[in-house]
Structures are given as structure tokens and as C-alpha cells.
């Protein structure tokens, strides 16, 4: 008789949402094995010691990508809340970061804890008595289906319907396939493999796009794009450097120095932002500048908000006019920085009338906190809903989505070389995983649908 194998669980233990700090708990026998893979502590202390705090980075092992700087508190079994090996990871209080860290933990062997599971483990390991546990009865007696649904409920509305639609399309194909496999003599039209291949290709590209948009943590590397535009030498690069706190863009007083766009990620008020320093909109004098300007246009198009930078120490010229016109034509949030406030101001206030203008000096740091809070407000007011949509998927859902993509890809590639029963195995797995993504039923009962849809009678 094999003894019980307890797996390792992880979950966010603080309320979901933005906060100063979020706490992720990991508990179970593999806790530290997993952490050794994904956590790089600073310093030379051995890891893990009992009841110790470590500062370090959570890293995605395969890419080396740093998800967050964190503090990890370690508790060795049995002296922990659950009685098992347990780690508490304090991350920055950003849902995107939390999701990313969780998904890294899940990829490396932990699974999502169910509601109340830490407490149950504590109880099982004799850490709590029954009275204490019964006080939590509401939580603990909740039926399993409710528990699972709770975790999935967040996915409601369009993305959910979108997944449901794709799942249904695949299910239709699967039912057709299964019907012909299970009832070979019932004159069920066998599946048209070429048509299926085309259909799967279409579904794959749609689903990949969805996955890209929804993928947890993708917002960290992508961030909400904010383009910084203005005529050359208006101080865009200085502004960016100030926000990033380091010299990233080349700052000179020769117009057109920034010929390419520069992108940098930062967190503003717990929101991931990608700043794009553009080459300006100056009429190109050579090919290199022309490329830069083309890229500027692209950056403006794809960004979530735009910061327009004007040199306050100079009278606006035709180029400033052109930039202003472009900004006014945009249907996205625009913030104006009247830069170089440390110099005598020549810019007529009427020029920027009707726009939200922040007077600042990127070089001296004046007005920067105002800019940051304004930017944060803009992002939150205009971006919060779309951000929510982007990060809607929990790590386990992304996991399911990835699995669905993998098997569908294999199915698509296999058509023509692979027997249909294997194809059906892949399609069924995809349907099952997609059901997991949007919280629909995971079980796939094709037989019942077959009897509804086909006249079986041999």
C-alpha cells in the first residue's frame, strides 16, 4: 500500500488587489525544492534555515526573467502554521506580479491551494484543534464545486464567452470524430481532415492571440505602453531618464539624437508601465531619421497613453504645432509636460489651452511627482478595466490554456500522419483544458452528444 503523497500547495494569502505588499504562501514537502529553483536569495546564508528571512529575486528558471524582488520567510516542518515546510513570499502588492510569481511556482511543482487548504493541513498535522477548525466551518464545509467555481468566477463576460465559443467548435469536431470511431458502421460521415486542419489553424491563431493578451505576467514584460513624444530636444530623453532613475537614453542637445525608440519598463504606483522614448516627429533629413519617425508613429499607435513634451523655454515653432496637432488627433489619454521650467518660460499658455499641462523640469526633477501621480491617475481611470481584462486569467487557467495550445498544435501538425483516434485524444484534451480555462464543465461526455446528434442504429 503506497502511503499518502502530499503535494505542495501555493496561494495568495493576502486579499487580492493592489496593496503595499502581497503575501504568497507555499506549503508542503517540496516547498524548498521548488523555491531553490525559482528564488535566488542574496547574501551567503544557507537556504533555507528555520525561521529566517531572505531578500532576493523570484526568477523564471527557463528564461532568467526576474518577476519581483521579494522577501521570503522560511519555516521548517513541523514548526510552521501548517506543520509542513512552509515559505511566505512577500511580493510587491501588484496583482500582475502576484500572478506571475504564482505561475512560476505552479510551473515548478506547486499547485493552487484550495480555499481553506492551509488550515486543513494545519488541522491534519495536529496544529489546530477541532474547535478552532469548526469556527471556520462556513469556509470548510463549502461544497467542492462551489470552491472550484469561486476561483474561476472572475472570468466572466467576453473572454469567457470567447473561450466557450472556441471550446464548442472543438467539441463539435470531436463529437464528429468520436461518432465515426465508436460507431464505424453507422454511415457517419467521416471527418474531412483538410477542413479540420484549416479549422484548427484558425482556432490556434485565435487562441494564441487570446493567450498572448491574457497571459499572466505578460503585462510585466509588456506593461501599459506610454509613448513620450515631442519635437527633438524638447527633453523627452531627460524625462525618461528621470522616471527610470538612470541614464538610459542618450541625452545631448543635438536635435534628433534619439533616432530609434527606446523602451523601458517600470512600475508606477503598482501598475506595470512601458515607457517608449520616441525619436520625435521632426521632418526627416536622412534615412535613419525617417526610420526613427516611422517608429515613433508606430509607438503612438500602439501605446495606451501619450506624454507630449514641449520646451517651455522656447516659442513654439511649426514643428511644435505639428506635434500638438498629432496629439489632439489621438483618441487616447494625453498628458502634456511643459518642460524646462527651470529656464525662463517663452511658451504662450494659450498654445496648450484645453490640455492637462504639467510644468516640470526633467533635468532638475521639478514637477516630476505631479507628473507621476497624474500619469498613475490617468492609467487607472482609463486603463483599469482593460488591465483587469488583460490579467484576468489565474495562473492555473493560463496553465490550462497553454496545455490546450500545445495539444491543439500537435493535433494540427499530426493531421494526415496521425491516426484519428490519436487526433481525438488531443482534441478531447484541448476541450477539457478549455473547459478548465473558463470554468465550464471539465468532463467531456461525447457519447451523449453523439446520440443526440447522430442516428446510431447498427
Amino acid at each position, binding site marked *: *500500500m*503506497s*502511503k*499518502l503523497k*502530499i*503535494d505542495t500547495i501555493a496561494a495568495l494569502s493576502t486579499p487580492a488587489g493592489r496593496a503595499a505588499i502581497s503575501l504568497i504562501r507555499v506549503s508542503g514537502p517540496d516547498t524548498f525544492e521548488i523555491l531553490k529553483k525559482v528564488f535566488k536569495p542574496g547574501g551567503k546564508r544557507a537556504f533555507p534555515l528555520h525561521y529566517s528571512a531572505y531578500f532576493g529575486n523570484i526568477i523564471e528558471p527557463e528564461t532568467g526573467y526576474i518577476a519581483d524582488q521579494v522577501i521570503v520567510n522560511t519555516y521548517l516542518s513541523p514548526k510552521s502554521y501548517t506543520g509542513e515546510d512552509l515559505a511566505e513570499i512577500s511580493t510587491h502588492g501588484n496583482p500582475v506580479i502576484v500572478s506571475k510569481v504564482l505561475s512560476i511556482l505552479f510551473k515548478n511543482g506547486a*499547485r493552487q*491551494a*484550495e480555499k*481553506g*487548504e492551509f488550515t*486543513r*493541513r494545519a*488541522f*491534519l498535522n495536529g496544529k489546530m484543534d*477541532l474547535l478552532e*477548525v*469548526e469556527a471556520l466551518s462556513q469556509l*470548510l*464545509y*463549502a*461544497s*467542492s*464545486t462551489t*470552491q*472550484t467555481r469561486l476561483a474561476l468566477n472572475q472570468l466572466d463576460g467576453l473572454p469567457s464567452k470567447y473561450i466557450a465559443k472556441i471550446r464548442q467548435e472543438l467539441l463539435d469536431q470531436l463529437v464528429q470524430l*468520436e461518432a*465515426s*470511431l*465508436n*460507431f*464505424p*458502421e*453507422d*454511415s457517419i460521415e467521416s471527418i474531412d481532415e483538410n477542413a479540420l486542419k484549416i479549422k484548427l489553424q484558425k482556432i490556434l491563431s485565435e487562441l494564441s492571440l487570446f493567450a498572448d493578451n491574457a497571459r499572466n505576467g505578460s503585462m510585466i514584460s509588456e506593461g501599459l505602453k506610454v509613448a513620450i513624444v515631442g519635437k527633438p530636444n524638447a527633453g523627452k530623453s531627460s524625462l525618461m531618464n528621470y522616471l527610470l532613475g538612470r541614464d538610459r537614453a542618450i541625452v545631448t542637445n543635438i536635435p534628433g539624437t534619439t533616432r530609434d525608440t527606446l523602451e523601458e519598463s517600470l512600475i508606477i504606483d503598482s501598475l506595470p508601465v512601458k515607457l517608449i522614448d520616441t525619436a520625435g516627429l521632426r521632418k526627416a533629413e536622412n534615412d535613419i531619421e525617417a526610420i526613427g519617425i516611422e517608429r515613433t508613429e508606430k509607438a503612438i499607435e500602439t501605446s495606451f497613453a501619450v506624454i507630449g513634451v514641449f520646451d517651455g523655454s522656447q516659442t513654439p515653432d511649426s514643428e511644435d504645432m505639428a506635434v500638438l496637432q498629432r496629439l489632439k488627433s489621438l483618441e487616447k489619454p494625453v498628458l502634456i509636460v511643459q518642460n524646462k521650467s527651470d529656464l525662463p518660460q517663452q511658451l504662450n499658455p494659450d498654445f496648450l489651452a484645453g490640455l492637462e499641462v504639467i510644468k516640470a523640469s526633467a533635468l532638475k526633477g521639478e514637477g516630476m511627482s505631479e507628473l507621476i501621480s497624474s500619469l498613475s491617475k490617468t492609467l487607472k481611470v482609463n486603463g483599469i478595466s482593460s488591465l483587469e481584462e488583460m490579467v484576468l486569467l489565474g495562473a492555473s487557467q493560463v496553465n490550462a490554456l497553454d496545455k490546450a495550445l500545445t495539444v491543439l498544435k500537435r493535433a494540427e501538425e499530426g493531421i494526415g*500522419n496521425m*491516426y*484519428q*483516434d*490519436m487526433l481525438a*485524444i488531443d482534441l478531447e484534451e484541448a476541450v477539457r483544458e478549455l473547459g478548465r480555462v473558463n470554468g465550464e464543465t471539465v468532463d467531456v461526455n*461525447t*457519447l451523449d452528444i*453523439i*446520440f443526440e446528434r447522430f*442516428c*446510431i*442504429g*447498427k
Partner: protein
Amino acid sequence: MTEKRHYSVIVIGGGHAGCEAALASSRLGADTLLVTMNITTIALMPCNPSIGGPGKGHLVREIGALGGEMASCIDETCVQMKWLNTSKGPAVRSRRAQADKYLYRQRMINTLFEQENLDVRQGQVTEILVSDNKIQGIKLETGIKFLCERLIITSGTYLNARIILGRESWDGAPQNQKAAIGLSASLEENGIKMRRLQTATPPRVLKSSVDLSILRELPGDIDAGGFTWEDRLRRYEKQISCFLTFTDERSIEAVKRHMSESPLVLANITNEGPKHCPSIDRKLLKFPDMVRHQIFIEPEGWKSQELYLQGLTTGMPPVAQEDIVSSVVGLEKAVILRYGYAIEYDALAPGQFHKTMESRKIKGLYTAGQINGTSGYEEAAGQGLIAGINAILSLRGETPYWPSRTRSYLGVLVDDLSTWSRNEPYRITPGHAEFRLTLRDDSAERRLIEDGYRIGLVSKERYDKIFTWKKRIEDEIASMDELSLLPSSEAREIMSKTGTGDLKKPASGAELLQRPGMTYKSVIELLHKPSDSCLTAPDEIYALETEIKYRGYADRELERIKQTAFLETIRLPYEIEDERLKIINKEALEIMQSERYDDLSQMVRLNHFSRSELAILLAILNGEDCDNEAEEDNSNK
């Protein structure tokens, strides 16, 4: 000489379930009595004259692997053997035989009568004798009582059976036999819940009145082999064909014209009939736009003058049947010898027996076949075998045999039956088996021969033979992993000629075989493997190629199998007291204890527990189970 009135095991019913149960029981050494209402109709095929098909064929091969009788009986008495689904993949490929109904019956009757430890008697059982929820024996309508330790009821469609033909209906059973009256009431008196199910059969027509010459002929496959391991390479040189025709507008018109006389419309029959085998009237009601329905015309035996009209099942009255039959191409002048009919019968309400087929209520009582809510000869035989085996194991006080759904279709069958409630007769198909790549037809003996030998239905001699075969295949699979081809210029040249790509680094035999288009034969040539160390039999090569080529899929399946198999090993106790249980969903716990499911996998499939509750149960039950095992160990000594 006084008549023997006390048996270890009594089997009621001589259908496909009863035959397997009685043979298993007597072959395992228990003195066994088979009581049937009619010795002449033992092993009768009252409906279609065929055995096998996807799922069903898998079952039959597994029955053969475990030492059951159906496989060899049909191998010897078939008139046609056919491969199905050959182009669709190894998991769904299966064999189907057309039977000579008469020979099959005769062969099975002979086997029963020649079997040691087995007595066969004709009589109608009207009562089961129970005391303290334990089976004691049976009483016949003649008043005679037989005592027994274990009773296996395989009553088929006979309990309180009613034949329905349009508006007419009467008490009766297949082939103008009597319905079994009394037994059902006795079961209910002892706390067993019954329900009504129905099924139907098509008309049989006189062969000489059918114009087969204008119909599409469906011959068998000479090289399909038989269901038993011994017959796996048997060539069936002499076979007879089936024929195919279709309904058209005229037939639909005829059905419509008589629709008011359909039992479905008259509602003088329960609606709980098999979805997978609908009557022609049901087809029309459900798919009104469909005009072209297939009708397979199947012989009932080598010399039989009767043809079976697969697809024209109905309980409509004779005139309707005549109109419908004569509307079909080739059947215009067909003479109906036996009319189709619908039959309604008593079966157990769902959820009353264990995976061993033993009643959850009455100890020592087993049920198998249609009484358990299945349809089909194969499903019946499989359950009969499992019931027979378990009756003996429990007599001996040994661990019951619960075939795992991860290892056999038999496991899928008994697990589905004891787990799910269904409101229609159950038919096995590959769609029920989530691990179907593992449960392939060709791997049946490799999966089950150890079980058959351990149970005792497979002789040492047979086991040795099959084990050698199994080992040969598995050793060769292993050697495909061990041997590798180095990318020499010669090898690269040959590889490029095969069109399966260059050879840039050393590749194992298995890796080579996984390339599209590569075969075992081409790989052993590339590897210069000495021919005396290579497989030559086509079935062995097929097994090897399938295992290696679809390894990726099989490995993923294996991961899921491990989870299910682990949960299956956690047997559920019915009375369990543990403070820690209070933490678990009360409702689920109550279901677990009151419904008496067998193992944790059932509870998980029924979605009763969350994963963390499962972990707690596992922890608790693990402790329990160790105790149980210790007890079993003692009792075996």
C-alpha cells in the same frame, strides 16, 4: 440416489452471463448448479447474430484472456470475421464476428455439460432465500429448494417480461418463451429495488424471398483472426457475407403511415430503451428529415434460412412491419418468418451492486447481465465472468477481483455500472474508456494473463505460452530502445533514401521507428539486427510498432492512469469514525457511507470531493486500509 440440494454456487439463467458465471465458478472448483427455464435455449442470441465490434470486441478478447468461454466459442462457430476501424487507429481497431446462432448455442451447451463440478437443471426460480441479509438458497416453482453459499442471478430480459407488438402485449419472453414471474417480487421483498427497461429486435425474413443479388455484399476479412489468443492468427478461409440496403422515401412513408401504432406513440411501453439501438420508429421520431437509414442483412448461421434485418428494429404491429420491410430495396418480396417485437422487463435500479457484482444489500448475492441494466451479449458475458470469479474468491475468503478501469474494458464496464446511474441499457464503446490507447485489442492478454493465471482460470501451460509471447514482444521493444544507429555515411545515405530525413546524431531503434513511414522491418535492417533475434509474427510486430510509434500519447495516458489507479486502490469503508472526517464535506461523506461505493476513484469521478478533501480522506483511509490488509493476510493463512 438422492438429488443434490446444496451447492456452493447457484447460477440462475443460462444466457451469456449465466454461462460464463457457471463455467468460472465450476472451473475454479466450486460445485455449481445452473438453473435455467429452458435448457434448449441456453446461450441463445435472441437479437443480432453477431459478437464484437468497437468496445464489445475488446471485451470478448479480454474474456478470452481471463479464461472465459465466449471468445473461443465464437471463434469456433462464426460464419464471418471482420476487422473494423483498421484505418482509424490502434485504439479503436476491433474485431466483429457474425455467429452461427445454432452452432454457438450447441457448442456452449456441450461445454456446460462436459464441465466438471457443474450441474444444469431446468426450472423456474420464484424465490430467493435470504436470512440476516445473507443469501441462503432458492426456491423453484415446483416447490423444490436448493441451498447455496453464493447465488448469481442472470435473468436477462425475462423478469416479469412483457412482449409488445403495437397495441397488443402479453407476458412473455424472447422466442415465445415464458416470462419469469415471482423472482422479481422476491427480490423486492428482500429490499432490492427494481425498475423497468425495454429493448426491441427486428423482424427475421426468409432468405429465399430476399433479392440479395442487387444488394451490396459485405464480406469478412480472411486474416482478421479470432478473439482468443490461440486463434489470433487464425485464417478464416470460408466465410459468408452480410448485405447492405437502405430505406428510402417509401419506407419513411410506411413508418409514418403506421406511426400511430408504435408503442412509443401509444406509450404502452417504458421509454427507457437503448439510445444506441433505436427502433425504426424512434429513429423517425428523432430524426424526421433522415430518409436513408442503413439496413444490414445478416445471416443467422451457415445453413439458416433466416436473415436478420439490422436497422429495422421495431415493436410496431405485424402489418406495419410487413409494409416497412417490403418498402426496402431487395426486400420487396421478403417473407417475415418472425416479427420484430419490443420487450419490457425488470432490472435492478442503479447503484445496488459493487464492482464485484455482489449486491450492496444482500451478502452472497451477485447479479450479472441485463438485470444490471446493460445490453449486449458481450457485456453480459463479461459481468458473468466477473461475478463467477468473485463468488469463488469470496467463498475462499480471498481478495475480490476488481478489474481496474485503467487495465481493461471489463474494468470500465463494472466501474461504470457500479458508479453511474443511467436510465437506459448500457452498451460499452471505446468512448467509455478514457485510457483506450492502453486498452487496445492486441494488448488484452498482455494486460490480463497474469490475472487469469492468478485467479486460476488460465492453466499453467496456457499461461507459460502467453507469457513467453508477451515477454518476446516486450524484450524486443526494450531492445529497440537499446540499439542505436550511428550517423555513418552509409547509414545517412540509406536514411536519406527512406525519405524520412537525415541522420545527424545517433538514433535508437525506437526513435527511428517513430519517424513517419518507418516500419519495424526497415529499422531492423538499418540496425543489422540478426534475423533470429527479431520478431516475425505479424501480431507481435504490430504490437511493437504500435507501442513505440504512439509512445508519446501512451505516456501521457500513463500519467492519468497512475492517478486513477492509485485512487482505485483506496477501498472505501462504510463505517468509519475519525475525528478528522468532520472537516470533510458532510454531504459527500454521507453519500460515501450510505451508497457504499467501492473505492475513492468513484467518489472523485462523481465529483463529490475536492482535492484537499481527497488528501484528507487519503490520509485517513490509508491508515484504515493497512488494518484491513492485515486482517486479510491473516484470513488467508
